[in-house]
């Protein structure tokens, strides 16, 4: 079974994001870049499916800058078989729809039985990609899955989605699109051998023309990033506990209107 995993390179989770000199973007100096954590669940799940079935191929894909190749290399080190790097000036200011079109085109070329996304990239938290790509392909899609089992004949997948206090179970014919929620699995650490082996695996460069795509101007444009106003300082209520509590309740009721 061939499984395609689109991934995104994002600033690591502990990054203190600063708005850049150009307020449309962030200041990238000193940022450590990682594979978006939800995408790691997707890679891990794809590897587990392959290992369980004893055969198959896991292909990692990203659309991004030259630096994003490092993220693909990390997926290869985890165990993905090969990678595709979508990179072209035509995608310079790509919005979600442009990216989704590029991914849908590459998916058509590669013709995997399953596409496994992370539920969202943790940088812009847009969460649009799985549904948009599925829509463009006309494939069924289940988002935020917590478990999955591929049928023995490889024709369908039983996927469990997290809903308030329960699991929503679907039987979905393949090919389909799934997106991974935290808890689907515990991603493996790349082994040193895996890292050494990753160097020998292929990262293929893919241009817009290779996918038969022309530059289509982004329809979603970032106007500017704005920092949140600083949080007002906290207030310490002095005095005896009994008095202080009275004041606290009054303040919550009258000033904050919280109770």
């Amino acid at each position: 079974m061939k499984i395609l995993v689109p991934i995104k390179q994002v600033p690591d989770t502990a990054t203190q994001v600063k708005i850049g000199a150009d307020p449309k973007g962030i200041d990238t100096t000193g940022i450590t870049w990682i594979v978006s954590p939800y995408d790691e669940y997707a890679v891990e799940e794809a590897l587990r499916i392959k290992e369980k079935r004893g055969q198959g191929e896991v292909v990692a894909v990203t659309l991004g800058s030259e630096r994003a190749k490092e993220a693909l290399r990390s997926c290869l080190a985890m165990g993905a078989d090969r990678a595709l790097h979508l990179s072209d000036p035509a995608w310079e200011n790509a919005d979600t729809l442009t990216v989704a079109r590029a991914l849908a085109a590459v998916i058509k070329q590669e013709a995997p039985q399953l596409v496994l996304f992370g539920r969202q990239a943790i940088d812009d938290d847009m969460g649009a990609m799985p549904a948009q790509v599925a829509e463009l392909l006309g494939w069924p899609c289940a988002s935020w899955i917590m478990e999955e089992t591929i049928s023995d004949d490889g024709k369908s997948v039983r996927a469990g989605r997290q809903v308030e206090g329960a699991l929503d179970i679907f039987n979905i014919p393949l090919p389909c699109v799934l997106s991974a929620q935290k808890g689907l699995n515990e991603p493996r650490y790349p082994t040193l051998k895996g890292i050494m082996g990753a160097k020998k695996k292929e990262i293929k460069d893919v241009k817009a023309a290779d996918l038969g795509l022309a530059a289509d101007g982004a329809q979603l444009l970032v106007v500017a990033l704005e920092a949140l106003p600083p949080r007002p300082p906290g207030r310490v209520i002095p005095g005896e506990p009994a008095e202080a509590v009275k004041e606290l309740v009054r303040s919550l009721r009258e000033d904050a209107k919280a109770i």
Partner: protein
Amino acid sequence: MEKFRGVDYYGIEELLTEEERMVRDAIRDWVEAEFLPIVAEHHREGTFPTHLIPKLGELGIFGANLKGYGCAGLNNVAYGLIMQELERGDSGLRSCASVQSGLVMYPIYTYGSEAQKERWLPALQRGEAIGCFGLTEPDHGSDPGGMTTRALKKGDSYVLNGTKLWITNGSIADVAVVWAKGDDGEIGGYLVDKGTPGFSTLDIHGKFSMRASITSELSFQDCRIPLENKFPNVTGLRGPLGCLSQARYGIAWGAVGCAMACYDWALQYAQTRVQFGKPIAQFQLVQRKLVWMLTEITKAQLLALQLGRLRDQGTARAQQISMAKMNNVWMALETARMARDIMGAAGIVDEHPVIRHMLNLETVFTYEGTHDIHTLIIGRDITGLSAFGDE
């Protein structure tokens, strides 16, 4: 405390290959997620988290710079970076990996017979078997050439008699690499299986340093081992010293890991600790300490890195390894002491890693050739005169 992001004041990151960085980051992530949360407890109890040994094997840490037998075949710089990250966790963790890789797998790989390699290397690599290295004796530490442990040939066996002391992982080892003098008085290496009659171990307690590491005494009383357990391809002190070069190289990097941990901790502490109405980081005396640490760390990083490149070219000399071990461990120990000082009373409790590193480094200063012994090695090299007192 904020997430550790490494210490790199000189763009040393750019001197590393993508693969070397990936190796370092993988081990750093693992140490942060799996080891740091449990180390203080093990340090308190005086135990090593042995359940992590197979995990270290799975990651590929054991024998990572050897080729074949399941080993990852990394270059020396990547191997050094692994040691750096392990020792940022704890010197005991790095010791476990150093002993297994540099002092047990390396001699089997370099001096061993094919049968010895087949029997031990794959299992040691996976962490399914644990090894220890017995060189030091109660009466012979810095001067191992004076060892009194004997391996005398009797019929179809060697018979071992003697005691080895201060042996890391001694009591949990499945195989001990033991150095002893033979009938001809020459030093040879012998593989002794756990449970061989006449071979017993005893753990050393009461340590104030390297608490999260097992240190044992090995004793051999008419312990018979088969003839094929002797290393065929080495005689003389060159055998153990060759292994020590491996391990000392790793220590030169490991010490940098300790120092980075202490510096990072002390810096963050100093920026938030307020005395006399100001963060203590604003006082000149505190800045001087922080600047000293960072400068020494940077120099030590460059020393370790260039040594690794020399090793990859095959041109590193033992005396150069001595310099890196000597300098880097000294600077790490001084850094740890300064970090402890900057933290005031908070510096003495194990809620912070600093005092643990500081105490561990006292061992690292002493083992694998004391600081002074390395000074004498380099002194002899540059003057041509031995100050060891033996000539």
